[in-house]
């Protein structure tokens, strides 16, 4: 381990510019929440006498500032918490850990946890951090709090269709979002066909969405990053909390293992809507039919010393659907879900050098098992990754903040492999798993050129090796185990610039090039559990995304309002879709069914947000266009994607009515999604059939909906051990019938001269009230 440390330090010194500056000393430490002992991410730390010198705490609450000899006042600021000021006399390097307290148990509602002027001052573009307390306050479909649906309320983000938690960011596809849970990739974020996300809000500490300039430390996807961090567990006292809703319940327990040194958290959630119906189902022909999903999050951490800390976290979730038709002796079971595991070791190499080593595994599995008498079948697909990752934050002086790191991932892609047997005869599909090694490295520097100009410049390089076994359908060559089939290498430059106009406003510009070597192509309007991830191969080229963005940011101090306008233009190459006339066929390699094309997305996003006070919330508006084209689909005609929303307006408001009552509301108005219309009917075998028109050439009617929720908290600002609250939520409270899908219904006897054709529009989510009881118990 010592040699690793030596190499790393050597690397740092190669890049170090610290020698160019006068004698500086380092003040460094961790920022924690006093009540829970949780590390605080994104705390703004600046020097009171010279506000341009500042930094934010990293994902582990660590900060480091190099300052000249002498007296300084450090200010620690975080929305919802009173600022903490620390006077320091620097004559040596100083270790300074800070605990911040908001003084009350239930935190003030915040929509962004960072400094109110963070957006104006940082080089981040298109970044939104969402505090989980905000997510819990907002109205929720069937009472199930869902952070992915809250992200959908932000400008530039849309969903596939109503009620689903899939995300489409700035015109990117559903596979183009890097969804991380404690650094492990989550490949399928949805339960119940995507209607609920896999993230249990009780186990989540923080969520960050990056839709604009992706910093160099992120890669593997071309559209966005959704970085979710699990809570560490309260290391000061035992806490149990949970909730009982109409379709699911949650329970979380956390506490210290060794006070202030180590802690744990275990959180679980399970649905029971069909469990309740079991007594009725049991008396029918469908006895044995059920559906439920569950999640389990667990995490422990241990602080060996001030320099070393270990985190172990895991997530496991499953959807299980069973269907039985006893009269016909037919049964089918459909379990699927994700699992992740992360072991991280934080180590302070020096007072200004933070090192993190992570071992990560994650998988997504889908199975379908069924049979009738002698006939049985099973379908299995999935993806499994093993990764090792290291990151290093180096703060040589106030003008530079280096980040560097590397990640290597071994991927195993299992396509839909079918095994079936009928008596003594067995069948197996000929499709084989695929394997790949993905290696990435990055280096970036946030450079403060002067008090009005900051640059975040970075370079990421990525290498992907598709390895055997593989049989080429182009050259007919066969490749053995671990034999290199195809190699791709791309440099990925990233840059964003912040130019301050004055103390409260700035202009930013950014450029991002990103590549993506794993792909998910769905043949439906949304992603489905059976959709498979595939690697880049000789046939499937890596996706490349290039985004240009420019924005204006203004903090209106008088009203505490954060405002921004961002304009972006994105081009996407090697985009994938299924060929025309494609029908699922588990017997052939799905990569033979793809066609390759390109896409572009452009638009402007407007955001006005208030983060503090009794009334908080935001108004967002997006005007945008998202298009794709493929030579082999309608001869290259440019068509809008199904998630193209030219106009998208959202309003979110949260208001503290009284000390016991909070009210929240949200409103959405969006252009109707595009669809492929019926062009005509034609007769075959004297029955009507549909000829479809050009892809996505019509739109359903515009979408709009308003939700409202009231939360009654009995002992809100209290030190009592037990507190509880009731959340009353009404989804779509003015009962607008938004179309969800349409179907056609024919009645025909053509030769008798009878034919009627109806197109029926179905609205699924009309007014839906729900109620949830939440509770929290703490040891002291």
């Amino acid at each position: 381990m010592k040699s690793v440390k030596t190499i790393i330090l050597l690397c740092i010194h190669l890049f170090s510019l610290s020698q160019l500056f006068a004698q500086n000393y380092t003040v460094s430490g961790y920022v924690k929440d006093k009540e829970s002992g949780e590390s605080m991410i994104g705390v703004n730390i600046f020097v009171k006498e010279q506000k341009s010198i500042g930094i934010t705490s990293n994902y582990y609450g660590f900060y480091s500032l190099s300052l000249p000899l002498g007296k300084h006042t450090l200010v620690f600021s975080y929305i919802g918490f009173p600022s903490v000021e620390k006077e320091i006399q620097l004559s040596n390097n100083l270790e300074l850990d800070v605990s911040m307290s908001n003084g009350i148990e239930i935190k003030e509602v915040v929509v962004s946890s960072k400094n109110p002027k963070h957006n104006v001052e940082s080089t981040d573009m298109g970044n939104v951090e969402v505090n989980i307390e905000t997510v819990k306050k907002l109205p929720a479909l069937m009472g199930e709090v869902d952070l992915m649906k809250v992200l959908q309320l932000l400008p530039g983000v849309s969903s596939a269709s109503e009620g689903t938690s899939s995300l489409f960011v700035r015109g990117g596809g559903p596979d183009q979002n890097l969804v991380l849970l404690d650094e492990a990739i989550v490949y399928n974020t949805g339960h119940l066909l995507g209607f609920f996300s896999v993230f249990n809000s009780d186990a989540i500490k923080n969520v960050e969405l990056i839709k604009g300039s992706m910093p160099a430390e992120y890669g593997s996807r071309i559209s966005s990053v959704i970085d979710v961090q699990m809570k560490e567990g309260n290391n000061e006292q035992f806490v149990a909390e949970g909730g009982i809703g109409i379709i699911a319940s949650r329970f979380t327990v956390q506490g210290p293992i060794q006070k202030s040194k180590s802690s744990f958290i275990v959180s679980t959630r399970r649905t029971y809507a069909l469990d309740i119906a079991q007594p009725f189902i049991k008396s029918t022909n469908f006895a044995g039919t059920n559906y439920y999903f569950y999640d389990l999050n667990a995490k422990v951490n241990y602080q060996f010393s001030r320099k070393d800390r270990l985190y172990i976290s895991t997530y496991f979730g499953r959807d299980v659907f069973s269907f039985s038709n006893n009269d016909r002796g037919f049964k089918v079971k459909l379990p699927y879900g994700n699992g992740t595991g992360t072991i991280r070791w934080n180590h302070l190499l020096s007072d200004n050098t933070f090192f993190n080593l992570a071992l990560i595994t994650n998988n997504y599995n889908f199975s379908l098992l069924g049979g009738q008498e002698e006939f049985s079948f099973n379908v299995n697909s999935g993806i499994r990754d093993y990764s090792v990752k290291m990151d290093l934050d180096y703060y040589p002086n106030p003008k530079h903040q280096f980040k560097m790191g590397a990640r290597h991932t071994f991927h195993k892609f299992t396509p839909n492999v079918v095994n079936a047997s009928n008596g003594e005869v067995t069948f197996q599909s000929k499709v084989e798993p695929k394997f790949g090694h993905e290696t990435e490295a990055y280096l970036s520097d946030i450079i403060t050129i002067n008090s009005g100009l900051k640059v975040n410049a970075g370079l990421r390089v990525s290498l992907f090796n598709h390895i055997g076994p593989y049989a080429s359908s182009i050259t007919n060559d066969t490749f053995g185990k671990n034999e290199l089939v195809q190699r791709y290498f791309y440099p990925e430059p990233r840059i964003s610039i912040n130019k301050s106009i004055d103390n409260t406003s700035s202009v930013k510009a950014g450029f991002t090039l990103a590549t993506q070597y794993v792909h998910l192509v769905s043949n439906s309007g949304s992603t489905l559990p059976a959709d498979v991830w595939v690697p880049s191969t000789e046939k499937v080229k890596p996706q490349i995304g290039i985004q240009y963005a420019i924005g204006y940011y203004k903090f209106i101090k008088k009203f505490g309002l954060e405002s921004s306008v961002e304009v972006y233009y994105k081009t996407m190459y090697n985009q994938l879709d299924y060929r025309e006339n494609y029908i699922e066929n588990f017997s052939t390699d799905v990569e033979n069914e793809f066609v390759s094309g390109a896409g572009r997305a452009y638009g402007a996003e407007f955001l006005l947000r208030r983060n503090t006070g009794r009334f908080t919330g935001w108004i967002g508006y997006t005007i945008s266009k998202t298009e794709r084209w493929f030579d082999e689909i309608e001869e290259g005609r440019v068509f809008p994607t199904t998630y193209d929303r030219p106009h998208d307006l959202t309003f979110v408001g949260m208001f503290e009515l009284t000390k016991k009552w909070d009210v929240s509301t949200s409103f959405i108005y969006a252009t109707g999604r595009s669809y492929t219309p019926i062009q005509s009917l034609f007769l075959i075998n004297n029955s009507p059939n549909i000829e479809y028109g050009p892809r996505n050439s019509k739109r359903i009617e515009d979408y709009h909906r308003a939700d409202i929720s009231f939360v009654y908290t009995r002992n809100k600002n209290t030190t009592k051990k037990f507190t509880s609250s009731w959340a009353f939520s009404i989804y779509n409270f003015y009962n607008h019938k938004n179309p969800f899908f349409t179907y056609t219904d024919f009645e025909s006897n053509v030769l008798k001269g009878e034919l009627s054709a109806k197109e029926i529009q179905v609205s699924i989510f009309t007014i839906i009230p729900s109620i949830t009881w939440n509770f929290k118990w703490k040891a002291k």
Partner: protein
Amino acid sequence: MRKLRDYSFILILFSISMYSCEEEISPEDTNSNPKFVVESYIELGNEALPTYALITKTLGFYSKFSQADLLQSFISGASVKILHNSDTVKLQEVCFASLTPDLKESVAKVLGIDVDSIKLDICVYVDILNSIKPQIGNTYEINVQVDQTVLSGKTSMPNLVPIDSFWFEPTPGKALDSFLQLFCTISDLPNEKNFYRYFVATGDGTFKANFQSVTDDAFFDGKEFKFTLQNAQSQDDDFNESYGYFKKGDTITLKWCNLDEAHFNFWNTLEVSRTRQGPFANYVRIESNIKNGLGIFGAYHCKNYKIAIPK
């Protein structure tokens, strides 16, 4: 396997049924330039039908169609030719109104329809003289001229993979007293792609294809394969407990056919297109082998089996 989407659909239906509501909508008419549709088959077998073709044109999406609308969609006066190498056979147009009752019944049988159900004076193009003698491996072309439009298509006559044996077993699960399940085995030909379609006629009735009537041999290439055959049921028929089973005491005719890949793709996409409904379903375009139009020109190599269902 493709029913996976349907099971998912059942699942969400249960969850949301109490909230959903339906409304009929009127899509705008986009059929301003109707296309011509060919439906023509060339058949080889022990009870092969003569080659015939129906030429229609596309209809706009209206809520209700009059007899006149439907009648207008059948094209009369077209020139329909079947070509093989240098041989050309012109199909003769036969319109129902001009036929004697006996001839009408014969033509109806060719079309697989009940003569009593015909109210429209439709016209069919038929190889009345049985001049076309289909042979395995031959490729046939169709050439249709309607007004100034020329439509064409190609198909080839495949090998027949006959059924080796049939037998009946009690229905699975809770056995039904009056019905049996039909099993059969085939020996798929190795090292070639084989495509299958079957039809069932009960008593003297007409042949019906099940709503999923085609399969390829991807999962049993070159193997002896045992499977069940479903009694034909159209998508519009109600699903009841005896769906797919055969009534004891009935006599059926099973028409078992092989077809080429383009012909299989047409029926496969058509049948999936008809079932592809629901919130997560994507549309499927029906794959046609007709140039300048829609529809199918397909060869069938069939064998008809008369089977008595045990009492």
